[in-house]
Structure formats: C-alpha cells, structure tokens
C-alpha cells in the first residue's frame, strides 16, 4: 500500500509542483499553440532538409524559423529578466541600444568607407568593441536607476528616444553594407551546419547564464534586492550595485542581439532595426510568469517565454491573419496566455486537479 501510493504520489506531486512552478506558464502556452497548429495544419511542424542558395545544407521549416528568429529575443530576455528582478522595472531602450551596438559593429568593420571591399577590422574586434559600448550604455541606464533612484522606465526613456539618433550619428548617417560572406554567417548558417547560427549563439548565452546562476550568487542577490532592497541592505548586500550590474549585463545581451541583427542583413536601418523589440522582451519576461515588479524570477521560463512569443508571431504570419491587426492578435493571445496562467486561475486549475484525484491526494499526506 505504502509503496504503491508512493509512485502514485510521485506523479501527483510532479504535476502539483509543475502547477506551482513558473515554467508551467510558458509550457502551457507552448502546448496550446502547438495543439492549435496541429489542428489547423500539422505541416507546421515539418522540418525539411535541403540546400540553400550557396549549396550548403540547411534545415528549414516553421520550427527552424522560430528557433532562428526567436534567438535575439531569448538573449534579450536573459538580461531583461535580471533587470526586472533586481530593479523592479523594465528597460525600454533595448531596441535603440541594439541600433547603437549594431551601428558600432558596422562602423568598426567598415571604417569610414560605407561600402568597403575588405573588412577594416576582424569581426571579433568589432564584436568586442560593440560589447563595450553597449555595456557602457547599460551602465548609464544602471547609474540613473541605481544611484539616482530614477524609475527604470523613466530612466531608460532617454536612451529609448535618443538611441537611434546616436546610432545614425556613429555612421555619419550612412548605411554601411558589409559584403564579407563570413559576417553573414552569424545571422544565417555556418556552411556545413544545417542549424541557424543565431540559435547556436542563443544556446551559448543560455549555457553561460545557467553556469553563472549556478555558481554565483547573482540570481539570489538580484532577487533579494528586488524583493526588499532595504532588508537586503541590512543583510549586507549592496542593492544599488546589484541593480547597476543587472543593467550592464543587459547591455551585454543587447550587444549580442545587435550583432546577430546586423549580421542578418549585413547592414542596418537605424529607425527600424529591432523596433518594438523591447515590448516583446518585456512580454517574454511576463509570459515566463515573472513579476514585472521585481523579485523572484525563473530564467528558463523567461527564455522559453521568448520562444513562445516567436512561435506566436510565426503562427500568426502563417495564418495570414488580417495583417494590420497582427500585433493586436499577438497582444490578445499573450493576454489570454497570461490570464490562463494567472495565479488565480492556476490555483483553480490546481484545485480542480486535486478534486479529480481526491483519494490519492489524501493518501499522500499520510
């Protein structure tokens, strides 16, 4: 009896824990979207193997598109989650900051000539310079938030509005185009590898953040600061510094995302590159079940949230939704997902589940 109960409870417990876990939310969202697509058109899930215009093998299909285009968002979601946790607010300047760091990459690669024959600097140098620049801008936001105690949305507004002008200024308002094929690998495919490179980059970022969260106090500290900055100060933390550093880390994420973005087109358009991406990044954090007012977070839920958003976008494209309403549809679906996963509703669901198996549940408490 005991042992039998045990295994039963394991299942019950697992689902119970899942109900409580944050990652439940994006998982349910993903399931719902998948089911929807399965019903409407199962070919959504078909992945085909073929050769691209250069004769290299590539995987293609909607799923690949999601992994590909969702990657920048996933990378941004990492930083945005930390900023949200520590500062209790969001950075609305990430789109503009991507424009800046992308512009820096092109500037370093192209030098003063906007359409150079050869690269003026190694790609890695360009990337590193853009990292430094993006982190400096992150530090600027972070200083306003952490040391001047300005609310994040207001503080980052400055870069949000000024960023794209700065990006244009970096390249003298010109539109540099990089012709080096290697540069385009980062936003496309590395010859021989059939998986889109942005996804690789995103995976690398995820591994790094996972290691950082596992082996350092970053996660704990930023949550503590976000939950109660006063008490965490009394406990010997430095809340201002934690907030500051979270913006710097977001800066790094921005640099990576910006690098992918410019590599995709080998060029840049200052006014539209990564437009509205801040909204998607914030949504990813929210869809991950994280409170936008800071505190506890789940990084994996945020990242999954980012891919769910891309999944949704791709689905909507595929559905040929009355397109002017696309973003409205997107918002509606996100809201529905968030409602379904709202604590109130989740509790109800969890109770319902309990009721369905009253015996086991009671037995489990013995």
């Amino acid at each position, binding site marked *: 009896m005991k042992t039998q109960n045990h295994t039963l409870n394991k299942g019950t417990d697992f689902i119970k824990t899942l109900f409580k876990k944050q990652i439940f939310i994006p998982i349910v969202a993903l399931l719902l979207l998948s089911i929807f697509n399965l019903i409407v058109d199962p070919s959504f899930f078909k992945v085909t193997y073929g050769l691209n215009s250069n004769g290299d093998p590539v995987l293609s299909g909607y799923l690949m598109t999601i992994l590909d285009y969702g990657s920048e968002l996933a990378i941004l979601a990492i930083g945005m989650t930390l900023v949200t946790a520590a500062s209790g607010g969001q950075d609305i300047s990430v789109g503009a900051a991507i424009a800046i760091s992308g512009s820096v990459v092109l500037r370093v690669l192209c030098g003063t000539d906007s359409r150079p024959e050869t690269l003026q600097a190694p790609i890695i140098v360009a990337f590193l310079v853009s990292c430094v620049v993006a982190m400096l801008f992150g530090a600027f936001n972070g200083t306003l938030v952490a040391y001047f105690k300005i609310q994040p949305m207001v503080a980052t507004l400055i870069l949000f509005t000024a960023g794209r002008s700065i990006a244009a200024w970096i390249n003298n308002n010109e539109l540099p185009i990089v012709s080096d094929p290697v540069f385009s690998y980062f936003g496309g495919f590395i010859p021989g590898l059939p998986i889109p490179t942005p996804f690789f980059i995103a995976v690398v970022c995820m591994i790094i953040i996972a290691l950082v969260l*596992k*082996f*350092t*106090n970053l996660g*704990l*500290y930023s*949550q*503590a600061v976000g*939950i*109660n900055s*006063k*008490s*965490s*100060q*009394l*406990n*010997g*933390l*430095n809340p201002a510094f934690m907030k500051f550093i979270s913006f710097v880390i977001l800066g790094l994420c921005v640099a990576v995302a910006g690098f992918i973005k410019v590599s995709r087109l080998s060029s840049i358009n200052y006014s539209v590159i990564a437009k509205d991406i801040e909204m998607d990044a914030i949504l990813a954090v929210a869809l991950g079940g994280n409170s936008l007012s800071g*505190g*506890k977070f789940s990084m994996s839920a945020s990242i999954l949230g980012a891919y769910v958003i891309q999944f949704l976008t791709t689905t909507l494209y595929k559905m040929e939704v009355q397109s002017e309403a696309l973003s409205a549809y997107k918002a509606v679906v996100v809201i529905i997902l968030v409602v379904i996963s709202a604590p109130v509703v989740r509790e109800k669901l969890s109770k319902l589940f309990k009721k369905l198996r009253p015996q086991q549940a009671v037995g489990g408490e013995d």
Partner: protein
Amino acid sequence: MQEGTVLEMRNIYKYFPGVKALQDVDFTLCEGEIHALMGENGAGKSTLIKVLTGVYSKDSGEVFLKGREKAVNIKSPQDAQKLGISTVYQEITLCPNLTVAENLYIGRTKGIFINWKIVVRDAFNLLQSLGIPADPNQQLSSCSIAVQQMVAIARAVDMECKVLILDEPTSSLDDHEVAKLFALMRELKAKGVSIVFVTHFLEQVYEVCDKITVLRDGKLVGEYSVKELPRVQLVSKMLGKDLDDLSDIKSDSLKYEADENIPPVFEAEKLVSASGIKPFDFSIRKGEVNGFTGLLGSGRSECVRAIFGADKILGGKVKINGREVKISKPIDAMKNGIGYLPEDRKADGIIGDLSVRENIILALQVKKGFFKPFTKAQANAFADEYIKLLGIKTASADTPIKSLSGGNQQKVILARWLLTNPEYLILDEPTRGIDVGTKIDIQKLVLKLASEGMSITFISSEIDEMLRTCSRLIVMRDRKTVGELDGEDLTQNMIMNTIAGGGNNV
C-alpha cells in the same frame, strides 16, 4: 578605550525630521558580556543600533572598536558585518519570497562562487542544531513569524562575529524558544562574543544579562550592573516615574456581569477556513475576555483570522448576538462590530507610507463609507485623542507611520481598532514589542473595555499576560482546539499540561 572593551560609542547624536532620536548617548560593550539595552518605545534603542551598524549615518559622535586606534566609520551594514558585528534587526529583515536556506546565507557567502547543495546542507544542519522547525527549501513566507524570527537569529549567530546585536528577538517567541535562545547566548558568551540584547521583558533581562544601559527619550540614563539594579528601579529609570505594582491588576479590575440568558455576542459553529485550520466551535459573551493559547504554529492566528473573515471561509455558521450572519470578508465582520488587530504588523497592519493620522482613522473611515470622509478637523481630533491616550511617540500626526518605532506602530494599529469601538475586538499579540509601562496600560485598557461591555479575544505568547487578562482560555494544538480552561483551572501549570497534551478537558 579601556582594557576589555570591544565597542564604545561616544556622544552619539541623531536627528530625524522633528525628532531628536539620540542625544549625547554613550554606550560601552565589554568582552564576553550580555548587555541589555532598555527603554520605552521610541526611546532610541533601535536607532542606536542602526547608527552603530551603518543603517543610519550619525549626525555626530564617535565609535571605537577594539584593536583600532582611531574611531571607525561604519557606512553600511556590510561594513559592520566585515568588522564582526552581526545584527538581528527589530523588524524581520529577511526576504519572504526566498527560501529559508537562501535567507540564511544571503549576503554572507564568501566569494562569488557558491555551491547550493552545500548551502542547503549547511542550512539543514544549522536549523537542526537550533531546533528550528523549518525546511531549508521552504519559502520563508510560509513560516510563522516566530520561525522567521528564529531564522533571522540563526543567520546572525552563525556568522563569525565578535559582537552580536539582537533587537527584540524574543518578541514573538514563546518560553520554549526563548529558553533555547538563551542557552545559545550563554554558549556564545562563553566563547567571548559580546551580545547587545534589546527586550521589553524584564525577567529575561534578569535571566541572562550582565549589564543594563537605559535610554529615555533619546538620552542616556545610565549604565548599571544587573545585580545592583532591582526591577522596580529599572522600571522607574526607564519610565522616569514609578510604576504601580504589576501583579494582580485583574483582581481589582471591575467585572462586567453578563446575563447568561442573552445569546453570546459572537458564536461560531464548525467554522473552517482555507488556511488549513480544523473546523472549530467558538463563542464569546458580552464583556468577556478570552484567549487562544498554544505553541507556535498551533493555529491561534488562523482561528481568529477565520472569525474575522480574513481567510476564505469554507464552511460553518456564524451568529452575532444570536442572529445568523454571513461573514466572508473583513468588511462584513467590521460591519457586524468586530475588530481585528493582526499579528504581523508590518505585512498586515501598517500602511507604511500613510501618515499616523490616516492609519488611525482608516478602519473607522472604511466602516463609515466611501462617500463620507472625515473632515480634517475630525480626523485630527481622533488622531490626537488616541496619540494622547496610548502615548504614541510621533513627531506629528502627519508623520508616515513607517518612521515610527516598532512599539509605537503597534500602538497606532491598536488605536485604529479602538477607534471603531467594536462590540467584539480580536487582539492577536497586541503587546508585541510594547514596553512594560504601556503593556500594563494595554492590559488595563482591555479589562476596562471589557468591564464596559466589550468582548475581547486576546492572544499572546506570554502566558502571564494571558492569565492576567483572560477569564477563559482555549488551548490549541496542531491547528485543533484541544481544550478549554477557566476559573480555577487557569494556572500556568494547567495550561502547560493541556498544551503538551496531558490535559483532560477535551
């Protein structure tokens, strides 16, 4: 600095807007002593500690530490920690959304790299060794206040420190826990750790402390050796006047004679709430003072929350004056003449940014209705009346309540409910963090109100206090009522027996 001194604070001044919290205060702490810091609510004890640990910057004065030539400048709690000063602050300063283990180690793990497995294991051992009934992976907010307090203490004592500061650590602990804490303190003392101990419980001071420093109105009254300062004198030093004898306030208080034929003011049958409390029956007559007693986490608070409709009610019947009513949310209870002072003052009581005045009138205002706000004059009159009545120390009625001392915040919340003049008042740990003088005043007030016909449920972790005020006690264990005591049975021994399960009044 003298030989044997670990810490010396000299001529400390600290002003807050409109308040002179500390004026020319000296404080000396010797090696291996337990030093009590005493004073009324708002005397400046917590402020002195916060100045010492760098939470507040002092306006002037100097702090010396053993082994340092010059005065040290402690700018932040981190600095204090680094200098070997470990502190448990009065308001629990842990993060409710983090786990117990995380709370135990946050801010004090060395280096940037940590291994959570080891941390959890260490936490488990620490909790075990102190006998704290909590799981390292449990979320802190799901622990009762008392456990939270124990966790905070565990965290502080686990640090390698030379000076340990405990600001009212025992305010929500019961005797059992207190005994454990004292054993721990003695152990540390033997190791040469110096302890600063703030409390309002005189017995506790005489039990563990070596020296006493008394503050009054932000000024130093003096430093005394415990042996040389009898209780009565200590009290008069704290209050600046003599206090009537504490004992026997019950016997000479008036007794309201309730008519047995009138139905109880409040009666609950098989009441059960979503918080996990077992269905219970309960009733209280007009003019009666009764109480719930039990160990920590026995469900006392949950019972009264159910009565007030603060938790979701799942079943049961409620009658007010014999008439069946439905109480599903606090406003229903309030409309039926019930008042409830919650135990967790910070989370459930105060509205931090609002002024003392607004905090006082809030409940009455809500009862009165949305469209009938009090005029400024009315609100001021109410606030002034109760500030005076309870002796609330505040710069003005406009001060945000969060800048009051802990005890004074408690008084404000008490004032809030007294103002509504309820027929039935529930007080969950109303004297927590209240100084001796006021505590007696509150007990007297409770009895006086009862004699005027108010029914009161009084919950306290101090059995003494319960015995002084209550005429009937309901004993709880494991979220069940397990007994009821009244009349002759109301003795310390009997209560302890019943709590422990030996009672026969089930």
